[in-house]
């Protein structure tokens, strides 16, 4: 008899529901196909033909995925976006930005690295070391809430995206409003700031979020077995 559980898992690999809800749908649909198959077998149909007939219950699995998702959470789509994307993203942002002043209060000193001319780059090493953990936490919460690979990664690196937005939108705007800042900030200095506050923390956040994203992708991949 075909392994209906694996068959349905493969077909519904992209079903964006929480892990528990998805497992329930897979179990239920696999059970249905198994009963259709057994019904045909009881009528004397050959195994291969009975399996083929059972598979005909669904002609477009992608459409079915969409219909199930819409049916299960159509009215709840916004709520799920908050749970999978915005809540873990903002949690990572709050924890990572809140931790730095706390560490400074406890006497954290930045490591100064000579950069270009009088400019130096600041590295708050203990803070940077906590970022992968915070990022992994955000990514994991998104994973548990049924987030997609993109949502998982986004949740983990959200602080970096916010800082990048500050640098590329808010800073140029403030240059425009107060030209004296622009006068003091050289391109090399700007690059140094970018390295201190966007690139390095971003890399640390990525280190935390990537394993969770890879874990999710592998989990999805492991469910992709050859068809029955």
């Amino acid at each position: 008899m075909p392994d209906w559980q694996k068959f349905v898992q493969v077909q519904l690999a992209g079903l964006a529901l929480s892990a528990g809800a998805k497992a329930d749908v897979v179990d239920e649909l696999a059970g249905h196909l198994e009963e259709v198959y057994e019904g045909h077998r009881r009528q004397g149909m050959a195994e291969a033909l009975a399996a083929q007939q059972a598979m005909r219950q669904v002609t477009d699995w992608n459409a079915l995925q969409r219909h199930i998702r819409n049916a299960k959470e159509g009215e709840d789509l916004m709520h799920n976006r908050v749970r999978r994307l915005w809540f873990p993203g903002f949690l990572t942002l709050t924890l990572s930005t809140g931790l730095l002043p706390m560490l400074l209060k406890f006497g954290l000193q930045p490591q100064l690295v000579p950069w270009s001319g009088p400019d130096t780059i600041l590295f708050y090493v203990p803070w940077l070391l906590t970022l992968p953990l915070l990022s992994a936490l955000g990514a994991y919460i998104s994973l548990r809430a049924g987030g997609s690979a993109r949502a998982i990664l986004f949740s983990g690196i959200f602080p970096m995206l916010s800082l990048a937005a500050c640098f590329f939108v808010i800073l140029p705007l403030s240059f425009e409003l107060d030209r004296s800042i622009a006068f003091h900030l050289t391109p090399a200095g700007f690059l140094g700031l970018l390295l201190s506050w966007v690139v390095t923390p971003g890399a640390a956040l990525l280190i935390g979020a990537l394993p969770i994203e890879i874990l999710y992708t592998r989990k999805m991949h492991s469910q992709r077995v050859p068809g029955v």
Partner: protein
Amino acid sequence: MIGAGIKRGTAELAILSVLEESPLHGYEMARRIEEQTKGALRFTLAALYPMLYRMEQRGWIRGAWETSPSGRRKRCYRLTPAGKKKLSPLRKEWAELFGALKRLTKVAHA
């Protein structure tokens, strides 16, 4: 043979009606509807489950996992009080529609 549009419209009524008789799991529900309508209404898996999940979201039916005597886990659906409440106006609406169509076709044949 009944067309697809009418089938979609009557699907909810069919599901609520069979569940009014007894709690059922998906496969059994599809089989019973097909039997009782003499094959006029046939639910494939693809048509049945999105409908069940939508009705469950609306609170008309409630699904719960049960283990059959053979040890197989099945999700059994029951009609909720809200589903029972929904059933009677639905029946009335469809009875009125089919009554109207019947009268219309009789007039057309006359």
